[in-house]
């Protein structure tokens, strides 16, 4: 019983952690560059939860002031995460652009194949 309460209390964090681990796993394990970048996206998105969850106040409303409400959720995490999202998309765009160029230069987007080419270049 107690454990369940614990879990409910920390459910957001648990999912957050799961997403982080999953995202990180994709990044490190997958050789396909586009998939890696999407995994990177998942990894970054999980941070959004890490910030937003503790800012939520049960029974609160969005932080748009109005006479009819008294309790508002914490606005600061929202601001930070807006910035974080922007950073995320910027990184994704740049990463994809790089992948396109790499594909043109090496004819593949599988990282381990490309590393073979790189090693060959180093020998030459």
């Amino acid at each position, binding site marked *: 019983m107690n454990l369940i309460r614990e879990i409910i209390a920390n459910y957001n*964090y648990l999912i957050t952690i799961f997403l982080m681990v999953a*995202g990180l796993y994709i990044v490190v394990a997958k050789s*396909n560059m586009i998939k890696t970048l999407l995994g990177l996206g998942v990894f970054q998105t999980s941070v959004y939860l890490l910030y937003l969850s503790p800012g939520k106040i049960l029974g609160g409303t*969005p*932080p748009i002031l109005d006479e009819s409400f008294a309790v*508002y959720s914490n606005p600061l995490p929202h601001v*930070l995460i807006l910035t974080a*999202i*922007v950073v995320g998309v910027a990184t994704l765009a740049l990463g994809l652009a790089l992948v396109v160029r790499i594909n043109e230069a090496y004819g593949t987007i599988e990282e381990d194949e490309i590393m073979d080419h790189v090693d060959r270049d180093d020998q030459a």
Partner: protein
Amino acid sequence: MELLINMVLLTLLAVITVGIIRVRNLFGVVVLAGAYSFLMASVMIVLDAVDVAMTEASVGAGISTVLALGALHLTKTEEAPPRYSAMIPLFVAVGTGAMLIYGTWGLPAFGLADTPMNTGVGLDYLNRNYGETNIPNVVTSVLASYRGFDTLGETTVIFTAGIGVLLLLKRFQREG
């Protein structure tokens, strides 16, 4: 009720993530990623982060998907089978997870009002906002004024990315 919706949506998120890991067809992955973003957006609504939700929906589900599809269109759509065993990555990821569980277990429980975070600067904004700015949407006032410099930086990030992508992808007459 809030709590329940919140938990359900989160669970769905986790499920989709598993899908993203397992699916090999990159189109499928991109679509899943789009769905992921939509779910994330709805979670954000539950968490009262409406501005963020809006952004996540338009960026994550919109722009990102378009870009990813564009990139796929220029490259290829099947992921090659992995060459090396995934043990080390798994280890890294799980290690990070363990560190996180260790760290986050001491965090205040979900949804409380009297946590340091919700009694800190955030509350301060809510209280002083009306006197100082006439902007009801505190997120906007904090974004554009109290922490306006962050947003300038954020705009700069976009600017950087834009010019960067152009530098990398734009075809000039000489080449091609």
